[in-house]
């Protein structure tokens, strides 16, 4: 005879393994974050992120291109420890230290809006969509500093072709991941999360525009926008949406995160332009990262030096108004 003894624990009360592990990781992440931010707020400890730089997995079969020949590359350490990636915190050293619990795999990107049929694509398949190329590009931040970065990626045009947008698609919107569990910066309403960026269709189709999946011949580190980010070398760096989860084709111009944050300071186009100052600081010159304490500023070039290739996209437009 079976006399049912009342169980001590109902099955519904048992924490699943997944939730249990997540919770531990979350607590760990929160702890690390707390210590790190306390130290940086105190300002006494230099967060020596550079010492902790880890290299990533190599990408095979990258096609070399002539872009950026003769440019001196910015050190890997600098490219991966001096980042603006507010989802991981607003200080430049935050992304490198705060992104360690971020998981760029598995990853799928959903394609929506003005397309024949909405679809999803896994990051592995994006790697196989077209031969991956190395593109050495100058990167000019709106804060008047710059780097030279050897990206690995594919022309965005290839991905767009695969997405099959309809004739109504005039703009492309890029939406970044915003997971408060693994992206501590998202818990703070500094920007209207998720991060949104956008391009006009002809800008998106331009051969210079790429979806980067790596740098220095290796897979993108988390702090640089893993697993996939936008790179538009003639625009200010903030146009390069990171950790993209969604691409939406639209008929109307998208409202980007920075346009919402400061419409008088950040426009939709955000082309590098030394003659149009940011309302608060100059854009005429820039500091090239890696020069050390005693290297002077260099002059900023129109369209970040890519005027020959992209100038015609903006003929007849008042770049003072369309900043």
């Amino acid at each position, binding site marked *: 005879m079976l006399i049912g003894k009342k169980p001590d624990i109902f099955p519904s009360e048992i924490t699943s393994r997944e939730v249990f592990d997540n919770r531990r990781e979350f607590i760990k992440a929160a702890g690390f974050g707390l210590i790190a931010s306390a130290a940086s707020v105190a*300002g*006494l400890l*230099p967060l*020596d992120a*550079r010492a902790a730089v880890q290299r990533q997995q190599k990408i095979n079969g990258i096609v070399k291109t002539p872009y950026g020949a003769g440019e001196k590359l910015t*050190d890997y*350490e*600098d490219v991966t*420890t*001096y980042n603006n990636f*507010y989802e991981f915190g*607003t200080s*430049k*050293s935050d992304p490198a230290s705060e992104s360690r619990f971020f998981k760029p795999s598995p990853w799928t990107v959903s394609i929506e809006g003005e397309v024949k049929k909405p679809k999803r694509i896994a990051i592995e398949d994006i790697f196989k969509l077209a031969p991956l190329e190395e593109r050495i590009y100058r990167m000019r931040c709106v*804060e008047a*500093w710059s780097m030279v970065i050897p990206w690995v990626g594919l022309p965005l045009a290839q991905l767009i072709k695969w997405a099959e947008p309809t004739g109504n698609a005039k703009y492309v919107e890029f939406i970044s991941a915003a997971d408060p569990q693994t992206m501590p910066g998202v818990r*703070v309403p*500094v*920007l209207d999360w998720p991060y949104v960026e956008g391009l006009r269709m002809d800008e998106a189709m331009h051969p210079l525009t790429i979806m980067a999946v790596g740098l220095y011949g290796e897979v993108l580190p988390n702090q640089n926008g893993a697993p996939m980010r936008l790179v538009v070398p003639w625009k200010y760096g903030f146009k390069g949406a990171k950790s993209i989860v969604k691409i939406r084709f639209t008929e109307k111009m998208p409202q980007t995160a920075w346009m919402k*944050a*400061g419409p008088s300071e950040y426009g939709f186009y955000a082309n590098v332009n030394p003659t149009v*100052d940011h309302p*608060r*600081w*100059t854009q*005429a*010159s820039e*500091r090239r*990262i*890696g020069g*050390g*304490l*005693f290297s*002077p*500023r260099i002059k900023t070039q129109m369209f970040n030096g890519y005027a020959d290739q992209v100038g015609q996209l903006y003929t007849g437009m008042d770049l003072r108004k369309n900043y």
Partner: protein
Amino acid sequence: MKAPSKRQLFWLKTLLFGIALIPLGRLVWLGVHDDLTANPVEFVERSTGTWALVMLMVTLSLTPIRLLTGSVWQIQLRRMTGLFMFFYACLHLTTYVWLDHWFDWMAISKDIVKHPYVLVGFSAFALAVPLAVTSNTYMIRKLRENWKKLHNLVYLVAIFGVLHFLWLVKKDLREPMVYALVLAVLLGVRLYYRYKNKLAKARTAKFTPPVPQ
């Protein structure tokens, strides 16, 4: 708070002097070890600016301590903390003029005229110069009553200094807001006591028995 003896005060001042030099020592240490981050100029600029603000807040807290606790001796530390504020402000400005702009006076003057955060920062520094120059005992004696009036400029220096930080920041205002809040409290305490004293004075005036005619 019990006032320290002369000897204790000397050691306290020496200790304070050493502590106030730590931020500079740290910059030198990091510089020697090539550890000033990927953007060393910005780092030095930010750090020296931050410490100028901190020293200014410390300087401005000595009077509220007197108002709140009645303790007076700490006022003797004010000249030193004030001069350290000026010291870090000088390093900040030097970094800007030299390392950031390499004495490109055209670019610098454009920057001051066109960009409000630079203008208020520069104004704060300009207003701090006469305060530093007249901080010695000789000038205090010479200026007498006017010295106090002149040194009221420190409030303007503080407001401009905090605005300078606030307007420079792109989006995350949390750090400059801390300084704004501290300054608001430090000035608020002063205003409160001023109002209280005035009220008390008015009251005693009211209750003064009329002089017999």
